């Protein structure tokens, strides 16, 4: 997030797109409701009428895969009606004329046709966002899990820059991260092209710095993303795979293919706190300690590094992740020892400019938001206050293009997937909790009343969904939450698993698969065989 969670409460307007915030980020969702009570305006954009839509001043139920067109339409109206921040554009941005030229053709009527929306609602949303003094944009996987995900993020940035909403309090561009420490994992180099602090592996000077610190030769090659790793395993270019805290058989697209790949790899190590579906295929399972069984830090979605303290002993042979990694490292001949995560943080600070001022002593008094360039620095509540990091914010105009797989006569419906409140990710944890399983015991398919009637489907019927990749079964929930010709499934469940159906086509830049749009066929069945 460019901004902080607490700032949401003082926003004048909130633009929530592709985020089921109250179910997936309940704390942030609650703050949005507080902001609404404080007088903020709320725009909600989602193919499903999510709970937050009930609080919205305008709710846009767009067709999956049309985010870019909608954003262009909003910017068209804002510029047409003179709501853009001209002085901000002049002083703090570049390439505005290109943006203006591109969005000119995205009239509300044209965008309405592409997105399946009423042009008046598009105008209303544009006026709310464009008129607000402090407007924050909040998004999650509904934006990124598309073949056009990176361009959609750029377009969100375009919208924020257009109205001067980057570099001020209670505004900004705010991706809400999907796990408690995904931000921290990325910060520490859990990306194919990065070392800690997003220092790029292909830069010789970066490699030299880390080689000097670690006294070992390092590769300067950009690594592979998960989708690329799977391709390489199939081609026998990768023979060993080490998976930590992930369950790709359930969470990744085209589950049949994922299983085939994991069965094909020569040697599979899985490190997790429970024996997941993926761990069942492993040659070696390394039992890891859970969050309450270890010391360390998590870095949350607002870039806040926070202490986590051990409350109970880990069961059996389970150990903290850092200790398992250190022992493997030692067995492989690198003798360095760390006596406590605080020692690791000291090394992180010495090598990572944005973490340079962070240490355990300071974290005793509360979390710190990076960048923290030195020990006197208080942390950074919101980014780009003085200027955009590049110098000026660069408008990157982008055109709408269709999703990789569109409905046709064989597969006439769009499947979109997501999360629900009572289950978490692939249920390795929540699936063991009786209360949660009582509330949300099984997978389901949300289907519009009109579509259901057309197909002779009633509430609770078992239905079969088939895509070009596979098929799955789940019970129907007939509802007007979802639009006609679109169905929704949660991806959590291994029985009635949505990811048998999803598409492996990826965004060209981020390599994130298009989990939000897959063409499917729907049939009512008597029972699952």
């Amino acid at each position, binding site marked *: 997030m460019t901004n902080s969670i607490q700032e949401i409460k003082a926003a004048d307007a909130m633009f929530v797109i592709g985020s089921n915030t109250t179910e997936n980020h309940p704390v942030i969702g609650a703050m949005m409701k507080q902001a609404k009570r404080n007088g903020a305006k709320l725009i909600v954009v989602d193919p499903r009428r999510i709970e937050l839509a009930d609080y919205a001043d305008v709710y846009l139920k767009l067709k999956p895969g049309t985010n870019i067109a909608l954003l262009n339409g909003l910017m068209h109206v804002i510029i047409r009606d003179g709501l853009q921040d001209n002085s901000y554009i002049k002083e703090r941005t570049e390439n505005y004329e290109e943006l203006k030229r591109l969005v000119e053709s995205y009239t509300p009527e044209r965008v309405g046709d592409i997105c399946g929306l009423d042009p008046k609602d598009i105008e209303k949303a544009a006026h709310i966002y464009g008129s607000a003094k402090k407007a924050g944009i909040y998004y999650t996987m509904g934006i990124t899990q598309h073949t056009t995900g990176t361009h959609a993020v750029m377009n969100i940035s375009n919208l924020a820059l257009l109205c001067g909403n980057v570099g001020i309090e209670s505004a900004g561009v705010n991706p809400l991260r999907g796990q408690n420490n995904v931000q921290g994992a990325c910060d520490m180099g859990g990306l194919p*092209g990065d070392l800690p602090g997003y220092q790029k592996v292909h830069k010789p000077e970066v490699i030299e710095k880390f080689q000097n610190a670690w006294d070992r030769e390092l590769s300067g090659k950009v690594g592979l993303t998960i989708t690329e790793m799977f391709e390489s395993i199939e081609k026998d270019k990768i023979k060993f795979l080490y998976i930590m805290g992930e369950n790709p058989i359930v969470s990744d697209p085209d589950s049949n293919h994922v299983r085939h790949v994991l069965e094909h790899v020569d040697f599979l190590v899985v490190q997790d706190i429970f024996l997941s579906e993926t761990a069942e295929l492993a040659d070696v399972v390394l039992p890891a300690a859970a969050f309450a069984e270890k010391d360390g830090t998590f870095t949350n979605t607002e870039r806040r590094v926070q202490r986590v303290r051990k409350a109970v002993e880990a069961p059996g042979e389970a150990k903290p992740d850092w200790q398992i990694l250190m022992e493997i490292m030692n067995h492989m001949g690198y003798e360095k020892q760390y006596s406590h995560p605080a020692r690791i943080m000291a090394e992180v600070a010495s090598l990572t400019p944005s973490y340079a001022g962070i240490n355990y002593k300071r974290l005793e008094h509360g979390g710190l938001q990076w960048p923290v360039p030195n020990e006197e620095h208080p942390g*950074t509540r919101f980014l780009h206050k*003085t200027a955009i990091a*590049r*110098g000026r914010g660069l408008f990157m105009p982008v055109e709408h293009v269709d999703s990789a797989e569109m409905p046709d006569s064989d597969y006439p419906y769009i499947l979109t997937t997501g999360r629900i409140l009572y289950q978490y990710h692939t249920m390795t944890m929540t699936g063991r909790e009786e209360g949660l399983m009582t509330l949300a015991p099984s997978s389901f398919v949300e289907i519009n009343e009109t579509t259901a009637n057309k197909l002779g489907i009633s509430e609770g019927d078992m239905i079969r969904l088939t895509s070009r990749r596979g098929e799955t079964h789940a019970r129907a929930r007939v509802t007007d939450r979802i639009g006609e010709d679109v169905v929704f499934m949660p991806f959590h469940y291994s029985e009635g698993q949505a990811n048998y159906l999803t598409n492996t086509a990826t965004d060209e*830049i981020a390599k994130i698969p298009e989990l939000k749009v897959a063409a499917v066929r729907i049939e009512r069945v008597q029972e699952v065989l």
Partner: protein
Amino acid sequence: MDYEQVLKYAMQMELDGSNFFKEKAGHFSNPTTQKLFQDLSDVEMEHYAYLERQLKAYGDNGGFDTSGEVMDREEDIFKAREESEHIEETLKESDIPDLTILRMAYLIERDYKEFYERAAEYAKDEGIKSIFTKLSKWEEGHERIFKSEYDRRMKEYMTLPWGG
């Protein structure tokens, strides 16, 4: 004013640039930031050496006058760009500092180009006017080089697997 004066002026500008970038190189801990500032400092010194060779080639005509219109140097071109682009603050927040720096660098070259263009416009002597015009073209070439390096790196970053 003569050719020597103009060249010495231009040399001083390059020297200022080199010192500016060198000072910045020692100020940041990110290795990419350090390296790029050092590289830019070296480039400015190469420019300085080039001008020095030109000066020597034409020989010393004697009598170096530090007064006159051309010597009202815009000494603060670097400082002004540093401040207008908020380089201290932005580099602390940038994951790709080389783009931030290269952008500032090509803007500085553009500032020089425009400065020499203006100097050529106001110069009364045709010979001096011609030298300023040549220097302006020279700086325009530097701007193009930095911009093209900026574009190359931008493209490189755009093909990296971002996200998470």
